[in-house]
Structures are given as structure tokens and as C-alpha cells.
């Protein structure tokens, strides 16, 4: 089972904190990979909030492809960042190529375009580059979005963190999602590694999604270009959130009603029962049957955690105002925020949908049954 480590805070925190938390949960993952997605970046990126950052890996051929494509599209490089790679003999991590996070200025034609048009441009650019990379394995792109940075690599999470030089020069962010991968039923393929991202929505999960095929088929048939990939059965969790929140315009907590709908008799107790019943039927094929604990962030920086409704995977939230950790294991929370009142820790159950607004001042638990 994969291990999950997320931190949301009012101040910038080091990515290494989330990785160290993963290390405390080491018994749970086999160290087959690490994926981190950071939002609301500090350090060198603090002054570049409005510039989309292209995160990925490439070899020289891929580098040229990226440069050519981005130039042709009219993107201008604003800032280039690369991790300070530290290769240690005996390490489980092998350098795959050049790890890059490049902030671009929008093409002139898009400078005054709406956010929606910019979002479409960024998604299409990422997908075009991904397709070019899939032809020859010369490049991977994970995210292309303002103030969001992603790194993924195979190996023990702590060793990957050290490989990226985070122990010496850590990336800083207010929101960090990190997943220590347990490689089970899929070959190690970077596009199958969490977290998954689409237009500001990002999720990671531990568990398996038995309803993957109906979920995937439904999303694919929405004819939205961003609903693709699906190298992992967990990618649908991110796209379902995108679909119901961005495309359908539903408030965030209805994610719970989409992926784990209530029984009709329970829906009858909710004030919006008419809308809910229709929604349940219309989105029947997005219902999941876990086990899954889903942790993610939204475009506005809200962080959430929820569970499937029957099997439940571990998930716990603890912290203090200004800093909360959302982990799959309590020892991870202890690592990040040892000095907290553990009595206030929250372990979401089948009806709970937990959110933490940007600024990380309080944890809100929304109960699906009560609505």
C-alpha cells in the first residue's frame, strides 16, 4: 500500500518535511518511487507566482523538443530551476536525465486572455509535450501550471529526496503532496506515479480503485482533452474532482457524494435530496468502490482528505493552527508536528469530507449524512 504525506501551512515549509514523514512510514512502502507536487511555492519561485512552471524530466533530445515547441508556441523562459542532483554510490536512485522546472511567460497573444483560456492553453501544451515524449521516451512532463511544481522518480523516497539535494537546498511551499510508492500491480512508469494533476486540481491516493474501468470510460467519453492518461487506476480521482468542481460547478464537498453516494434512504434526509438523487443517478459511473483514502488540493489551495465508504484506507489529520499534516499514518503526523494535541487528531470515517482552507487555520469536517 502506498503511503501519503501532505502538509499545508501558513508559512513555507521544506519539501523534506513531507519526505521525512514518508520515511517514518517506511514499513508501508517498498521504496519504489516518490512523487511530490508543491503548490504556493516559496524561495526562488516566490516572486514568480503568475508564471506557469513546466515540471518534467528530459534527455537532450527531449530538451530540444521542449525548447522548440515552447518557442514555437510563443512561451518565453522566465526562470529555470533544476535540482542539485547528488548521486550517491549504492543509492536506489538512477539519474534519468535532466530534471527541470522552468517558469515561462505566457505568449503575447495570451497575456490578456481569460483564466479559462490560459488554463486550456497550459493543458494542451502539457499534453502535446507528453505525446512527443511518449514517442521516444525523451521527455516526461508532469505539471504545467502557475505556482505548482512536480518531481517524480523511482527509488526509496528518502534517497530520492537526497538525490534531488533537498536535504541541502530544499524546495519550499505552503502546500506539499508527497507519495511513497508501493509498486504493486503496475510496472514502474512515471506517468503511473501519484500525485496526479489537471488544471490546478491534484490528488494522490493509497489503495486500489475497483471501479476504475467504468470511471475511466465515463471520463474518456466526456470528450475533454485532459481526461486521458490513466496509467494508474488512481488518476480518475483527480479527474473526477476536476469534472464535478470545474466542469459541473458543484461545491467541493459534493465530491464525496459523487464518489461514494449515499443510499436513497439516506439522501432523503438531506435538504437538497432532489438534486442529490438526480446527481447520484447521472454520475453513477463515477462511483468508486475503494479501498481508497484520497488527499488532494484545489486550484484555490484548499486541501482535502476523504475515504471510500466501505473498506477505508488509513488516513489521519493532525496539527496546529497554521500547520496541518494529512498523512496515511499517525507516525507521519508525529514526525511533522510532534508538539500538537493528539486528542484533536481527526481520522475521517466513511461519511466525512475534510477540508483545510489556505492559511491552514482550521480543519473542517463535513458530514455527508448530515449534509
Amino acid at each position: 500500500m502506498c503511503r501519503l504525506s501532505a502538509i499545508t501551512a501558513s508559512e513555507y515549509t521544506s519539501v523534506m518535511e513531507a519526505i521525512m514523514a514518508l520515511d517514518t512510514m517506511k514499513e508501508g512502502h517498498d521504496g519504489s518511487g516518490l512523487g511530490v507536487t508543491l503548490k504556493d511555492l516559496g524561495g526562488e519561485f516566490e516572486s514568480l507566482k503568475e508564471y506557469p512552471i513546466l515540471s518534467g524530466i528530459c534527455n537532450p533530445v527531449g530538451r530540444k523538443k521542449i525548447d522548440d515547441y515552447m518557442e514555437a508556441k510563443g512561451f518565453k523562459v522566465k526562470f529555470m530551476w533544476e535540482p542539485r542532483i547528488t548521486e550517491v554510490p549504492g543509492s536506489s536512485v538512477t539519474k534519468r536525465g535532466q530534471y527541470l522546472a522552468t517558469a515561462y511567460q505566457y505568449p503575447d497573444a495570451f497575456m490578456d486572455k481569460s483564466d479559462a483560456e490560459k488554463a486550456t492553453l497550459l493543458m494542451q501544451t502539457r499534453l502535446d509535450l507528453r505525446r512527443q515524449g511518449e514517442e521516444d521516451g525523451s521527455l516526461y512532463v508532469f505539471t504545467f501550471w502557475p505556482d505548482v511544481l512536480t518531481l517524480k522518480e523511482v527509488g526509496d523516497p528518502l534517497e530520492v529526496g537526497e538525490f534531488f539535494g533537498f536535504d541541502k537546498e530544499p524546495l519550499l511551499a505552503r502546500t506539499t503532496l508527497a507519495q511513497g510508492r508501493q509498486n504493486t500491480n503496475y510496472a514502474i512508469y512515471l506517468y503511473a506515479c501519484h500525485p496526479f494533476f489537471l488544471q490546478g486540481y491534484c490528488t494522490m491516493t493509497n489503495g486500489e480503485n475497483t471501479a476504475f474501468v467504468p470511471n475511466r470510460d465515463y471520463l474518456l467519453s466526456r470528450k475533454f482533452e485532459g481526461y486521458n492518461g490513466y496509467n494508474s487506476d488512481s488518476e480518475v480521482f483527480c479527474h473526477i474532482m476536476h469534472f464535478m468542481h470545474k466542469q459541473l460547478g458543484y461545491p467541493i464537498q459534493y465530491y464525496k457524494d459523487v464518489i461514494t453516494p449515499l443510499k436513497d434512504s439516506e439522501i432523503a434526509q438531506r435538504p437538497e435530496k432532489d438534486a442529490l438523487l438526480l446527481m447520484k443517478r447521472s454520475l453513477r459511473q463515477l462511483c468508486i468502490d475503494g479501498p481508497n483514502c484520497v488527499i488532494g488540493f484545489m486550484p484555490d489551495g484548499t486541501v482535502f482528505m476523504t475515504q471510500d465508504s466501505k473498506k477505508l484506507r488509513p488516513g489521519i489529520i493532525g496539527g496546529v493552527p497554521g500547520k496541518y499534516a494529512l498523512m496515511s499514518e499517525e507516525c507521519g503526523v508525529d514526525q511533522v508536528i510532534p508538539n500538537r494535541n493528539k486528542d484533536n487528531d481527526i481520522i475521517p470515517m466513511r461519511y466525512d469530507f475534510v477540508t483545510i482552507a489556505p492559511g491552514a487555520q482550521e480543519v473542517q469536517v463535513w458530514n455527508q449524512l448530515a449534509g
Partner: protein
Amino acid sequence: MESTGRLDHNSELSLLEFPYIIRWREDRCTRCGKCTAVCPTKAIEPSAMVQRIVHSDGATPLPATIRRVSHVIRQVRDIDRHCVGCGTCSLVCPNMAIVPEYNPNHKFLFHKNRGGVPYKRGGRRNDPATSTIDKLKFTRISMLTDPALDAGRHEFHIRTLLGRIPQAESLQMRVDGNRLSLADDGFIPPVREIFPIRIGGMSIGALSPPMWEGLAMGVAYLNEVENIPVVMCSGEGGLPPRLLKSRYLKYFIPQIASGYFGWDEIIHALPDMIEDPAAIEIKYGQGAKPGDGGLLMAYKVLKLIAKIRGVPMYVDLASPPTHQTKYSIEEAVAKMIQSVSMAWGFRVPVYPKISGTKTALAVLNNLARNPYAAALTIDGEDGATGAAFNVSMDKMGHPIASNLRDCYLELVKQGKQNELPLFAAGGVGKDGHLAANAAALIMLGASGVDIGKYIMQAAADCFGDEKNRCNLCNLGKCPRGITTQDPRLYKRLDADHVAERVVDVFKSAEVELKKIFAPLGRSTQLPIGMSDALAVSDQAIADRLKISYVC
């Protein structure tokens, strides 16, 4: 020198030409006559035979040959009185002296067309081979990385939706604060939540009164006592007037077919209806006999049947092969769906049923564009019927598995897989694996399945099988009393017993479905289209159905 009688008997059939040969044991037979009295085709008759026996009477052996006349049971060699292998004779025999035995080398079809009349029968396609849906296995078992559910402990919701389901994008939702509400009270198509196995269309008339009554009682009990919302289609021929005006109507799907039998009575009963029916099925085709209409023979049109159907007694009731008002799917079918919907104020799902066919996709595409079409039922070649030409049953039609799969994948392509439910029929439970067949079809993309022949076999012990056993449904001579209007025959059938068995069947099917879905890890929603759970050890089938091959 030739004898006065002919020796060659060239114009007669030998018993070896017949599909079933009677094995009669003289030593056990008490000559009670029950077997000959009960035989539906009069294939056996009492006869006399001269026997030569060696006999000795004295204290010491003094064998002598004597001849004596004895009474025997003889199988007739008239093709129109062929033994159908039903085995009713062995059922009534007190001494286990008689039993029909299947003759795999028979030449029945070479001869069963006397008078230029092709062979007609009831039942389903005579192919005892394992059907495609029976070859499918469920191979995605949740193991360790993904704990299976407990069929006995977890809550399972084994229900499906019958009715057109609006696309989420088209729902008029409003966000008030942080809460959703419906923006207006525009038209929302009616949807029923039902058990995914339905009883398919079998008419009063085709079925005997106790059979139909037993099914209906069983369905009502399942809904009202067992909380399993099974629905049942009337078949063509209407519903009993009292049922139309009862609260039980909601468990029934009246069928409108090309003869419109019973619909005058249904329409006239509309003002007195206190419940809406579950749905309305418009039958355009039947899997067992695609392109054929129905025929209820005159001798089956007794008083009750005549009243329900609104016709005189004792006349042949032929339904045309196609609806006479239908000249184009775009117009007439759409109009028919809308007209019937309108009769119930658009509160009842109305859907067509077609035979499995290569042209199913054309029908589907049309229905996908018709906002009032509530579903599509496709009836595959292994569906059964009360009466049809043998050639129609054996050679016409399309297997359900690939037909359904093509339609589902087409809906996926259009993004309408959740909008227009598909129901599959034809051979479900053919080999007794009701729940497994239903689950396989669901994972190929069906929202539910229909059964007909299976419920006759399971609930009323129908003798029929795919070696052409019995299959006398068309003659009104059903030895079980299932498909006959002859009171002497149908009094053999106890409606209460049928109802009990209907309840047994659905309760056990629900348990079996749980036993299938639990290891797959699915419980909240029916795994419609969850094709990754399926596999087959036949590469060609795997390729065609786009599922995995295993060996």
C-alpha cells in the same frame, strides 16, 4: 419367392430416425396404462405382440416352446406423433418401467415437414453447446492489495435503473451558498430502480392461468415482503382487468406489440389505475424468431384470454411481423414512444425491445438521439418463444454477447453509457448459471437482463431443453401445464408452488450476485461495463468482446 406382405417397408421410418426412443421394460410394466394416457403426442400406445417362450411345467425339465399373446407398450413411428422426450410417461409410471432416451443419430428434421408444413415448435435454439456468456469468467479477484468485500456482512446495493438518465451536464443545478439545488422543475425522465434480473415478456394466453398467476404472485411477494424489486413484463396480450386497477400494477411492464392485443382494455382502464406501471415495453422483435410475429392458436383463446385481449373466443390471434404503423424509426417509433409516454403523463419509462441483429447499432443511435426513449432491450438468438418455425429459432438471430457489447461501446463512444440503459436477453441462465450470466452481461455493459425460459424451467419444472426435449409450447399440450389453456393440463400446475419457486430463484440469484460482486470489490453500484473483471479462455471471443484472454 416374395411374401404376400412387403418386406422392405420403404415408406416407413425406423425408430432410429426419431429423436427420442422409448425404453420400455416388459418385466416391470404392470400395464396400468398411465403412460399412454398422459403422453402429450400419443407417441406410445398399447399394443399386442406374439411372444415365443420356452416353457417347462413338470417336476423334471421338459422344455417346450409355446407362443402367447402379450400386451406391450409400443412407440409409434408416425413422425407427427414423435416422442418428444418429455418423460411424462416415466413421471407417472409406478414401476420405473418406461423412459425416453435421446437418440443422437436421429434424422428428425429430414422428415418433420409432412404436407409441406415446416416444423414448428416452442422453446429456444436447439444448441446444447456452452453459450458465449457461459464461457465468461470473473477473474479480477480482489486479493491483498485490495481487500475483497464480505458478501455476508457488507451492504450490497444490487439494483439497476430503468429509464433515461439525464447527463450530468444537462441537469439544471443551482448553487445556493454552498448547497446544490435543482434550478427549475423542467422535465426529468421517469426512472425506476429495479432488481437487475427481470422476468421477460410472456403473455397470458401463451402461459396458462396458474403459470402467469404464479409468476405474478411471486413478483408481488418479492417486492412487498422480500424487498427485492423484481419487475415482470406482460408479454403481448394485456393484463387482467383487476391487476390493471390494483396497486400491484407498479411491478409490471405491459408490453405493446404488433397486434396491440389487450391495449384497448389497458387504455380504457387508465382512469381507474391507482398506480403507474413499472414501464412500457414496445416489442419490435423477439430474439427467438426475429422478423416473425406472434400467433396464439384459436384453441388457446378461451373466455379469459378473449376478455383480456378484447377479441372473440376461439379465433387465431396473429400478430404481424412488424408494427403496421411503423414505416421509419425516426418518425413512427419516436411517435409511438411519445404517444405511449403521453398516455401516462410522461411518468412511465417507455422503451423498445428488438431482436439481436447486426443493425442494432442503427436502432441504438436513433434511440440515443430520442430524449423520450427510456432504454433498449436486445433479445439474443438464444431467447425462447411459445411458437415459431424451427428454422427461425435455430438459424435466425444474433448472439447477445457481441451485440450488447457493440452497443455498449458505441454508447461509451458517444458518452451516453449512463444515459440510455441497455437490457440484454436471450439465453440468460441457459445452463442454469442465472446469476453468473446476468453478472457477465452487466460487466459487458447491460444494465440488467431478462429471463423467460429459465424461470419456466426453474419455477414450473418445464421439460424443455436444447436437445429439443418437449418444446410443445405451440401445441397447447404442455405436459407441465405451463403453456396451455387446457384445464386438464394446467390443473397439474400449482400457482402457489410456482410463486414459491419464483421467490426462491430471485432470492438465491441475489445471494449469488453478491458472491460474484464481493470478490470483485464492488457493492455500491452495479458494475455496469466493468469489463476488466471478465476474461475468457478463447482468444477470438476475447478479441471480439474486448476483454482479456486467460488460460
